[in-house]
């Protein structure tokens, strides 16, 4: 009886098919003109770059023809220019069209890889910072935190005294801090017990100063101060907020930097090349994702469903992967698309400054940087087209990002 009623309802379209949240977003996305235009532009650039890379042979090392130096765009072959060059030729007589199409492979690759680097590193850091800001550190987490502190201080002390075995001693002391410390509790700040602090300070003093006495009394004094400090630090009830604070302060430092100069300095350190440019651009982008993910995670961890999941005994791993991460995805997806757009501009900027692709490898920014000196002699085509390629592909990603934002956050639709 009931079943037949259900079938009847389905027939009459009164009960629709279940729609998932993502399915809904997708429907909104493809019904928006901006997003469709963006997808079309992105598809053209990605397809042409990929197809050219795999099916249109090009060897930049042998591409050279001085007889065709700096010729304006020609669509019909004539006596002076016997071949078709829709975008003209550059200072070495190379076909600009061919180089722009092949340059797309490199430029887009830099964009994708560097955004990937920023997302993976920044996302994980932001996830940890946001999660542990409101959750208590587990035993393992605390062990890693304190062990890290021990490792860092132990390394300095060991270097000063020239005694390597101090490092494991410091780490052991820190681990002891976990087991002899206070039970990690959520929400409540555990009290500081003076007796325990004193004990750890004494232990730290002992393991660092005594071996250093073999070197000189001054070294022993310096190491002793370091050891006592470490001991005191690991005896304190350090919790998740320390992890979050350390991560976010490091992000603040990276953000405070003038971004272009940081990227340039990193490339100068690593040496020029496309892969190095990817690392530099990716590194500079890390704090953006860390901050975005952290704030998204912070708001999600306050939600009732997270509390409910914890109440039924869901572990941290499952809580993160099943309940928190999926609910932080939509701002990240939007930022990813926009991030791709700016990474492509960055790649072009580094290439323009001569810090990206190594010539004669084609890359949009590098092609521009190669040819802009000939602008004053009227060779506009070698500058116009690669720049137009950068602008259009970036425009495509921005359009797609706008569309995605409207699709993923229906509350913004007006």
């Amino acid at each position, binding site marked *: 009886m009931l079943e037949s009623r259900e079938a009847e309802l389905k027939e009459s379209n009164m009960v629709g098919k279940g729609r998932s949240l993502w399915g809904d977003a997708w429907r909104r996305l493809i019904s928006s003109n901006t997003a469709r235009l963006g997808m079309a532009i992105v598809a053209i650039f990605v397809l042409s770059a990929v197809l050219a890379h795999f099916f249109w042979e090009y060897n930049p090392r042998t591409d050279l023809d001085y007889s065709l130096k700096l010729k304006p765009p020609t669509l019909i072959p004539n006596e002076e220019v016997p071949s078709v060059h829709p975008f003209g030729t550059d200072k070495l007589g190379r076909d600009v069209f061919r180089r722009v199409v092949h340059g797309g492979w490199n430029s887009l690759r830099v964009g994708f890889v560097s955004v990937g680097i920023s997302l993976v590193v920044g996302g994980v850091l932001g996830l940890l910072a946001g999660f542990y800001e409101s959750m208590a550190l587990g035993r393992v987490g605390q062990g890693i935190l304190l062990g890290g502190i021990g490792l860092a201080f132990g390394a300095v002390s060991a*270097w*000063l005294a*020239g005694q390597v075995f101090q490092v494991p001693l410091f780490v052991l002391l820190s681990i002891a801090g976990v087991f002899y410390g206070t039970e990690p509790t959520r929400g409540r700040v555990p009290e500081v017990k003076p007796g325990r602090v004193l004990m750890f300070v004494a232990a730290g003093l002992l393991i660092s100063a005594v071996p250093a006495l073999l*070197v*000189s*009394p*001054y*070294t022993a004094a*310096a190491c002793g101060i370091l050891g006592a400090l470490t001991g005191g630090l690991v005896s304190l009830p350090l919790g998740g907020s320390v992890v979050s604070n350390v991560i976010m*302060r*490091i992000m*603040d*430092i990276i953000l*405070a*930097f*003038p*971004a*272009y*100069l940081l990227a*340039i*300095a*990193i490339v*100068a*350190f690593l*040496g020029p090349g496309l892969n190095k440019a990817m690392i530099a651009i990716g590194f500079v982008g890390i704090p953006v994702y860390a901050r975005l993910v952290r704030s998204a995670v912070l708001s999600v961890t306050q939600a009732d469903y997270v509390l409910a999941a914890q109440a039924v005994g869901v572990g941290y791993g499952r809580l993160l992967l099943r309940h928190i991460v999926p609910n932080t995805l939509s701002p990240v997806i939007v930022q990813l698309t926009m991030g791709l*757009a700016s990474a492509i*501009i960055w790649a*072009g*900027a580094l290439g*323009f*400054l001569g810090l990206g692709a190594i010539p004669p490898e084609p890359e949009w*920014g590098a092609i*521009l940087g190669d040819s*802009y000196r000939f*602008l*004053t002699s*009227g060779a*506009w085509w070698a*500058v*116009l087209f*690669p*720049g137009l390629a*950068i*602008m*259009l592909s*970036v*425009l495509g990603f*921005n*359009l797609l990002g*706008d569309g995605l934002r409207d699709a993923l956050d229906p509350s913004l639709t*007006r």
Partner: protein
Amino acid sequence: MTRYIIQRVLSLIPTILGVTLTVFLLLRLIPGDPAVAMLGEHAAQENVERIREQFGLNRPLFLDREALEQGDVAAFFDSQYIRYLGRLARLDLGSSIHRRVAIADELRTRFPATIELAMLSMIVAILIGIPVGIVSAARRASLLDSISMVGALIGVSMPIFWLGLMEIMLFAVILQWLPSGGRLGHAMEVRSITNMVVVDSLLTGNTEALVDALKHLALPTIALATIPMAIIARMTRSSMLEVLRADYIRTAHAKGLRETVVLFRHALKNAFLPIITIIGIQTSSLMAGAVLTETIFSWPGIGKWVYDAILGRDYPIVQSGTLLITIVIVAVNLVVDLSYAFLDPRIHYE
């Protein structure tokens, strides 16, 4: 409020120390010895040593382990990094390794050049971006709105180095209306007071130089202003649209207030926080993006200077230049945060 400012400034100290440490480390990790870079590959070893001694490059980076063993506490701390911090504390920026010029002297002309360009660009961006955003929001879905938002989207997607080159091609090469680079024509002379050419020529009443300076500023300003203008216009529009849906706007309309009053007195005031935030962020990226614009327009500012110094391993220039830009960025952020309380009385800083 005062307490908040003091707190904020104090909390900047670790950030700034972190920045100095990062620049310092990064520079030392870059392969290449500045002394060798300065004297050339085939310089005599003792000359290289002399230069290294002179610039303190022979000292350890952070702490001197051997000195501690000898019990020499002063020498223990006498390292490159701590010497650098000590000089900073005395506001002594040192001198360029390559050119032996005091960095402070060079900054006196270069820093105002960058600031002049960045400020003018920001002013242009604000003066155009905000009105465009307001009009777009007020006349939503009109032709004007569509045109300006498409324009803004193109502006956001613009690689400024390419835009700069296209401007040079059009206005300097083809039309020959405007100069392609530099701050002043060769024949021009302005008595330097602030080292910002526009301000100086205004102060000295030198109209001829003023016109020339503005002509030189036109192209780089357009290039630099495009992205912030587009971003400000977009942010103004979306923020205004949000506010225009509020009940008090309907009330204001119902009271029969004129539309300009509703838009500016009621809506804009409440829509201003996100706009000012984005202005702050964009000011920082203007400062940081100076490298590209200054390269294209041969603008004698700090961006290009630091860029060349990074490639030439001129440590002192990179250290001071980066630190200065960082301080400006951090200061802008502080001003933006403080302006929240000024714009929105509900926000209090304790």
